[in-house]
């Protein structure tokens, strides 16, 4: 028993006890002697102790995870502080305890000057077989340049350069019915003022459903407020308007509809994109009233059939989706 105790005590003494290093008596030291910095040593020990405490805290929090609120945050805090204290301890060691000195070493003089001159001459003379040096340089430049261009070509996939067709295709044809997200066809009487509805083409297959132009937002504007430009005359069905749901700025889905309760006092009705707050006026054909969008929200012409269902009368008045170079030169295609 006493043997074990003695062993523990001696181990502790060995671990904790401070041993002053005996100065070496022989030849001069490499590192110049500097006075010991006991305060810095103490700070380092303290920081290391704090780091261990935090690490122990991490273990404890993990052990009692079920009975603590905000476990993730506490775990992160404990681990973060442990690493921070450890880093601080190392910083203090580096700045205060490790001796530093700067030494500049001069470059040695050139060796074998004669041989070096010979090598330079050799490389000079080796090129005399080439008679059309300039042409060679040009050829090399051409090969390197075209190779670089080849590497850059895949970047074309980032935007439409050759295949704009995909961006113009829409699933809308004359007579196609509008349905909601569950596939139920919309009747004109379903659409109420001060509300907005999502619309899709009826019986759309997978690839059609994925097209950007498939999703619509439907709103109803009272007849006295409807003020469509002449080019969009007749696009509405008794005040019901179907706009593309994709913002013309960056292609986000329009999810906000501003429907004022009391018109004289409050902001006008508007379709708003939540990404950059592009704001479109539904009463005037989707004109931009605020935000970074550069062109109108495309409008799909509608009519009400004899059974009261809403059907597309044609295609959008412009390309659907975010803007790209030359977007205004094209028209939406069925």
């Amino acid at each position, binding site marked *: 028993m006493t043997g074990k105790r003695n062993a523990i005590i001696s181990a502790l003494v060995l671990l904790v006890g401070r041993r002053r290093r005996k100065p070496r008596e022989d030849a001069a030291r490499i590192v110049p002697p500097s006075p010991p910095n006991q305060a810095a040593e103490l700070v380092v020990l303290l920081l290391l102790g704090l780091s261990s405490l935090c690490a122990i805290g991490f273990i404890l929090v993990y052990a009692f995870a079920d009975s603590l609120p905000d476990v993730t945050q506490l775990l992160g805090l404990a681990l973060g502080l442990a690493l921070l204290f450890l880093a601080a301890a190392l910083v203090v060691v580096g700045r205060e305890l490790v001796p530093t000195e700067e030494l500049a070493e001069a470059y040695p003089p050139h060796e074998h000057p004669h041989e070096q001159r010979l090598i330079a001459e050799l490389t000079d003379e080796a090129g005399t077989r080439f008679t059309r040096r300039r042409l060679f340089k040009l050829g090399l430049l051409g090969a390197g340049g075209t190779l670089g261009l080849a590497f850059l070509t895949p970047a074309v996939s980032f935007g439409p350069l050759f295949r704009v067709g995909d961006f113009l295709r829409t699933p809308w044809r004359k007579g196609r019915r509008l349905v909601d997200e569950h596939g139920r066809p919309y009747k004109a009487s379903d659409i109420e003022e001060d509300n*907005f*509805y999502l619309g899709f083409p009826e019986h759309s297959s997978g690839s059609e459903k994925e097209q950007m132009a498939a999703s619509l937002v439907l709103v109803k504007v009272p007849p006295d407020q409807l003020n469509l430009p002449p080019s969009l005359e007749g696009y509405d069905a008794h005040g019901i308007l179907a706009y593309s749901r994709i913002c013309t700025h960056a292609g986000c889905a329009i*999810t*906000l509809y501003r*429907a004022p309760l009391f018109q004289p006092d409050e902001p006008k009705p*508007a379709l708003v994109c*939540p990404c950059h707050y592009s704001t479109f006026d539904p009463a005037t054909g989707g004109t931009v009233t*605020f935000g970074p969008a550069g062109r109108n929200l495309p409008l799909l012409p509608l009519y009400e059939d004899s059974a009261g269902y809403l059907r597309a009368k044609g295609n959008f008045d412009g390309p659907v989706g975010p803007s790209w170079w030359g977007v205004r030169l094209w028209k939406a295609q069925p």
Partner: protein
Amino acid sequence: MRPVLTISIVVAFLLAAGAAQGSPGTPKRPLAARGYHLYGQYCLRCHGGNAAGARVAPSLRGVGALAADFYLRTGYMPLQHLGQQPRRQPLILSDGQIRALVAYIATLGGPSIPKPQPWLGNVSQGLALFTEHCAGCHQVVAQGGYVTGALPPPLDRATPVQVAEAVRIGPYVMPRFSQHAITNRQLDSIIRYVEFTKHPSRPGGWGLGFLGPVPEGLVTWFLAIPALLVLCLLLGRRFRS
């Protein structure tokens, strides 16, 4: 001559005002009659005589107890400045005064105060419906957000009845949802979800207002990165000297 003219002008004005107001008179029930007087005190200046509306404020005929209860119990009304968005404010009317005013507005017709039953709703269905109809503006954990020209409020203090009322009214620039757009049963689910969001779980870290990546990005760019830069500069200082 002068006093006679003045008196006749005053009399003519009073007559004209009386004619413009019409004469439905005070309601018969005592509570509604008290509300009628309170209406004259707090609401008449903007909403006009007999709640018929004016240039600056809408008519209250037909809005019903539903709307009156919503606007008065949230503190949206009485509005402090015309033209501003109504905000949730400390109530200046007592519970009894609100009940009287609601009773008076109810005599002018319109829907009654809804009785939602959120315990019949379904949280997961409520999340789907909330995402579809509400999250665009109110943000998916109902913390509120922005729309150009208005501020959709957070729903942390909205009671189930107030949520049910707001959906049917569409206050300020909020869309109005009829029974056809959102059925009462669906509304129960939405309310159950809104109640759930009042104590959201935060498994991934502190919520920062639950507004999504924007505040998180702000913390990264304006707090974390400057802190790291300052640390780097402090560490490297000795070697520069």
